[in-house]
């Protein structure tokens, strides 16, 4: 056995009744990515309008009381929340994209493409307009409701989400709700409009510690659902009949693995606005570099999504200083060609 397993690069880990298969290579890459994310995070803390010398990084992170008031503010109230938020939202979107692509067996699927962002934005903008004093913390709830309703609409309209037309119908629905957003954009006060435009383009500068906590609260249960159903989802990839034959409860699985990504995307959008095609790109990148089933894909997409948002946000923040370009725009500029590349690779099959 071990020969077959070893030649496939697998190892077994057994502790009492607990057992699982490990791919050391994939694990290594994963840890490497995590390390990279930490490095980018730390360097991001140091850079910006108030540069902090690298030698002070230890102090900045672990002995904040030794910093000047200004440095403390910049590191702990501005940069750290923002960078951590980037990681968190990137991870959420990466997970969402990976899950949705596997349950719809459609490499072009992404909750962001099917109108979840727009539905979410409409509700959040309405909330802002009608209840401007409501704390930021309630936004994700409102947004998730909006996102779920829109996703439900798209599923009902296209009836079968394993066909490519699911994406197109989703795009149509997203236009409808984009028109709704347009109503806000053209009738509200222009300062609100510019703020809204920036938010909707995916901006992390409003990140605060309470918002981070809220995002985490939305991330954890949804992520758990995805990881627990990961193996079943691997089996489901082999066709409905085979999956049923192996004891997978397909309707339950589909429901869970469709709702969780919508949750994650809507929560992310409610916190920081639209971050473009992260959910689309991260899983493809993960599949390119990492081998393995759904679990490996989920981890990989989460890490790569986090890195993607972190890097683009940092670029947007620093590259054109003092002008700040929202991360969402940078991602769209990168994501567009990426999407086209995906289309190119599937050109014979579409």
């Amino acid at each position, binding site marked *: 056995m071990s020969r077959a397993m070893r030649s496939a690069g697998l190892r077994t880990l057994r502790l009492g009744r607990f057992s699982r298969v490990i791919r050391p290579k994939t694990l290594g890459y994963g840890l490497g990515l995590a390390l990279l994310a930490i490095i980018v995070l730390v360097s991001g803390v140091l850079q910006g309008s108030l540069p902090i010398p690298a030698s002070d990084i230890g102090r900045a992170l672990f002995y904040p009381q030794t910093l000047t008031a200004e440095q403390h503010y910049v590191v702990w109230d501005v940069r750290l929340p923002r960078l951590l938020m980037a990681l968190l939202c990137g991870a959420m979107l990466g997970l969402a994209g990976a899950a949705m692509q596997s349950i719809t067996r459609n490499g072009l699927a992404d909750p962001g493409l099917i109108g979840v962002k727009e539905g979410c934005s409409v509700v959040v903008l309405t909330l802002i307009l009608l209840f401007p004093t409501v704390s930021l913390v309630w936004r994700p709830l409102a947004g998730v409701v909006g996102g779920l309703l829109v996703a439900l609409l798209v599923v009902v*309209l296209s009836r079968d989400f394993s066909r490519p037309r699911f994406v197109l119908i989703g795009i149509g629905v997203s236009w409808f709700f984009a*028109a709704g957003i347009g109503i806000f954009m053209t*009738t509200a006060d222009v300062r609100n409009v510019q703020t809204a435009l920036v938010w909707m383009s995916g901006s992390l500068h409003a990140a605060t510690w309470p918002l981070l906590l809220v995002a985490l609260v939305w991330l954890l249960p949804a992520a758990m659902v995805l990881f627990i159903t990961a193996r079943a989802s691997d089996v489901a990839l082999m066709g409905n009949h085979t999956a049923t034959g192996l004891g997978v409860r397909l309707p339950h699985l589909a429901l869970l693995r469709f709702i969780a990504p919508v949750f994650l995307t809507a929560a992310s959008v409610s916190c920081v606005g639209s971050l473009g095609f992260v959910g689309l790109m991260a899983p493809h990148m993960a599949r390119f570099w990492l081998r393995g089933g759904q679990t490996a894909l989920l981890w990989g997409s989460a890490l790569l999504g986090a890195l993607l948002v972190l890097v683009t946000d940092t670029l947007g923040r620093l590259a054109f200083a003092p002008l700040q370009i929202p991360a969402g725009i940078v991602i769209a500029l990168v*994501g567009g060609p990426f999407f*086209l590349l995906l289309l190119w690779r599937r050109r014979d099959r579409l």
Partner: protein
Amino acid sequence: MSSLAKRSVRHHRRFVLALPLSLLLLFSLAVFHIGVGARPIGPYTVIQALFHFDAKNFDHRIIVSLRLLRLTAAVLVGAALGVAGVLLQALIRNPLGEPHILGLNAGAAFAVVVCTALGITSASQSLIAAAGAAALFSLVMLLSSAGRGGVTPLKVMLCGVALSAMISSLTAAILILDEQTLLAMRTWLVGDLSGLRWESIHHAIYPLLAGLLLAISIAPGMNILALGDNMARGLGVNLLRIRLVAMLAIALLCGVAVSIAGPLGFIGLLVPNIIRRLVTEDIRLMLPLSALLGAVLLLMADIIARVLLAPQELATGIMTALVGAPVFVFIASRFLK
């Protein structure tokens, strides 16, 4: 009589009925359109103003200087988009084709925004917009023609969406960085008919006429193109030439529309589909009808947009999207497997 001949007669009959009907509809909507607004004006006054203009009458002055302008713009833009839609759907053989979706509007908008940000307000804004539209659309067509299936509806749509998204983000980036331009353009960006000037219409007339003439000239050829590439080639149609001319016509018409009213979507989607279902698929007959129907639809959208949330005026482009997007979804779920 063969069934084909019977069908052709039926179409002609329907056309002969539809044409005056649309003209009538257009005129009544036009009168109504002029009457609508922050200061409602009755139809009788409108007709008086048009035929017995009295410079001392305040209402008459509004009509002539503001309302007529808006009406003319709406009619021209609607007609341009209607015709462009017909050509586009015939070109890609796909009932989901639409200037907005396929990146024409995004390209045109980008070109216009760049010029405005750079301070270039020139007479040839239509042409600049048309150039932007043509460039992006050619890119979409180029990319989607790759691969074994050639230009399939799905590929065209997806390429159009991807490229539009990219260019729109660039446009958004410029607007974020330049608040002045944002201020000037935010309503225009969703497609709107307010804040117009006679100059933009004057400058757009020639490209519009050029586009329409080109469209008329290739109409017979487009009919044959619908039979398939091989059939068309066999019947002596120069595929490359007709495609290029069609793209040029579409770009001109879209450029005109965008330069006057901004990127308005979905008129180009609705018009050909309606005509095809109710009247005919013969492009020669579709063209005049599409111009009329496009104008009619846009007038209706504009009227509703101004009346719906009175006294607040809604951008017309939002109206067209609110109606057009569901229609798109409907067609997509029927047409795509």
